């Protein structure tokens, strides 16, 4: 399929919105992606036509809902190329997924053991592990970053050892857009007998991911960053590992046998899907993946990198504008400051021009601490954006700058 930006934009009703009298320009795609009509309609369709609790239901509605729900699992499996369908666990999002794994590792590792996090993480991939370490006394080591915001693999080589039990990092940094060298990190970790969890919240929307090829042990992403709805995501884990870890939550569906004396867990994936799941969310997630594949990840990647190039070049022309993480290997995210002006002030003024950006720490305080800044302005582009929008951003930035200095 060729990439027709106007046609694609027309699939997204929100892009017609006016903000403060101006056309909405949405540059906050890394926080949440916008939603195409087909995904929105699939949610309505569910509630209008086959809303029902799933599994164990004997009636037709329940069967239709169950089938659509399980079809969606198969779509996710196929798209990310997991080996088995039951390796795909539906969660409420990346944060939930990571907590399942960190909680599961409470019992698997202990005092004297070590775990490694990158210095480039979202709080969701730091805090759960700190909570784990508090329980099992494992030691948390950090892969440091350099002044470009890149991970220092030489340092990783020094801290990884046979004591290392699991290494967790994001595929792409949400604050800077840098793509981490996960193939190398997975190899290095596996050589030392450590498992690897990859937080794909910021990568899955931008290029195709092959889980079997990566040979990663755990992987997760959120639907709301993939043109899907809020409140849904998935955790991938290798079957033998998912079988090994305890579930985070107990409840209906996740058990095979319950007495007051003893309970036995159900097989995968149910073991980790306690309670009534976000059924409409799961189904719509599948529709979103189909939609993205229809556009084609090759097309998306190519177009987004063109946008990134154009925007980076133009922004750099603004006096006093400093980009953080301005490296070669990145997705279409630009994190910057204008020297002497607080990101929050810039964001507030941009909003008046209809331009939506994110400002602040981006839930990645350690990165901000490293650069010793209170935050950045983050422009996160997606395949829905246009070159014109970037021009308008630059004009609005100049106006904000003159107002604020």
């Amino acid at each position, binding site marked *: 399929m060729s990439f027709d930006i106007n046609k694609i934009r027309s699939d997204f009703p929100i892009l017609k919105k006016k903000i403060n009298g101006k056309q909405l320009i949405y540059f906050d795609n890394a926080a949440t992606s916008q939603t195409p009509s087909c995904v929105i309609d699939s949610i309505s369709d569910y509630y209008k036509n086959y809303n029902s609790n799933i*599994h*164990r*239901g*004997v009636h*037709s509605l*329940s*069967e239709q809902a*169950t*089938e659509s729900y399980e079809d969606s699992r198969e779509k996710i499996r196929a798209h990310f190329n997991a080996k088995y369908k039951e390796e795909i666990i539906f969660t409420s999002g990346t944060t939930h997924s990571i907590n399942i794994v960190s909680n599961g590792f409470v019992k698997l590792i202990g005092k004297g053991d070590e775990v490694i996090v990158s210095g480039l993480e979202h709080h969701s991939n730091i805090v759960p592990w700190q909570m784990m370490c508090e329980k099992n006394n494992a030691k948390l080591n950090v892969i440091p970053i350099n002044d470009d915001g890149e991970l220092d693999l030489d340092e990783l080589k020094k801290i990884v050892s046979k004591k290392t039990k699991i290494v967790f990092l994001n595929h792409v940094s949400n604050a800077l857009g840098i793509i981490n060298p996960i193939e190398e990190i997975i190899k290095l970790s596996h050589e030392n007998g450590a498992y690897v969890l990859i937080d794909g919240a910021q990568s899955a929307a931008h290029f195709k991911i092959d889980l079997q090829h990566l040979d990663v042990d755990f992987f997760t992403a959120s639907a709301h960053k993939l043109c899907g709805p809020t409140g849904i995501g998935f955790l991938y884990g290798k079957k033998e590992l998912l079988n090994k870890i305890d579930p985070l939550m107990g409840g209906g569906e996740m058990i*095979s046998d319950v007495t007051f004396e003893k309970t036995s867990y159900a*097989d995968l994936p149910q073991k980790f899907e306690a309670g009534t799941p976000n059924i409409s969310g799961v189904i719509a997630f599948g529709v979103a993946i189909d939609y993205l594949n229809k556009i084609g990840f090759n097309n998306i990647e190519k177009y987004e990198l063109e946008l990134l190039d154009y925007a980076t070049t133009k922004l750099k022309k603004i006096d006093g504008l400093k980009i953080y993480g301005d490296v070669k290997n990145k997705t279409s995210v630009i994190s910057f400051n204008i020297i002497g002006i607080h990101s929050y002030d810039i964001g507030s003024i941009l909003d008046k021009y209809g331009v939506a950006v994110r400002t602040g720490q981006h839930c990645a305080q350690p990165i901000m601490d490293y650069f010793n800044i209170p935050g950045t302005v983050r422009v996160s582009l997606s395949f829905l954006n246009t070159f014109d929008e970037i021009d308008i951003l630059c004009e609005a930035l100049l106006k904000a700058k003159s107002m604020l200095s």
Partner: protein
Amino acid sequence: MTIENLQQNLIEDFSFFEDWTQRYEYMIELSKGLEKMDEQMKNDKNIIKGCQSKVWLHAELNEGKIKFLADSEAIITRGIIAILLTIFNNRTPNEIIESDTNFIEKIGLKEHLSPNRANGLYSMIKQIKFYAIAFSKK
């Protein structure tokens, strides 16, 4: 008769039914011919997971052929079991391993059963094939 012949027969039998009541009545009828399973065989070891009503399946090798005994609490499920055993009972492991299972779609069982029930059906077939593979290695 070969497994294939039997499957063909079943497909024909089922093609005559005009509505679900006839299909169900036929399955209920079939269920009554099911060989009785010993109560003590209805143990946890023999339970098949993934079915809505409890299903037990026991298998033993008898002079190169597999003898199956199965039962369920629910009569419609018993009907499904009866169909499966008509086909797979007293066959050699290899016959079972090599047999095709798309007769299920052709019978219309899949549509006329529900996906949940179809899941149970597939779980049973999976277990039957699992036994066949296990016995073929002995």
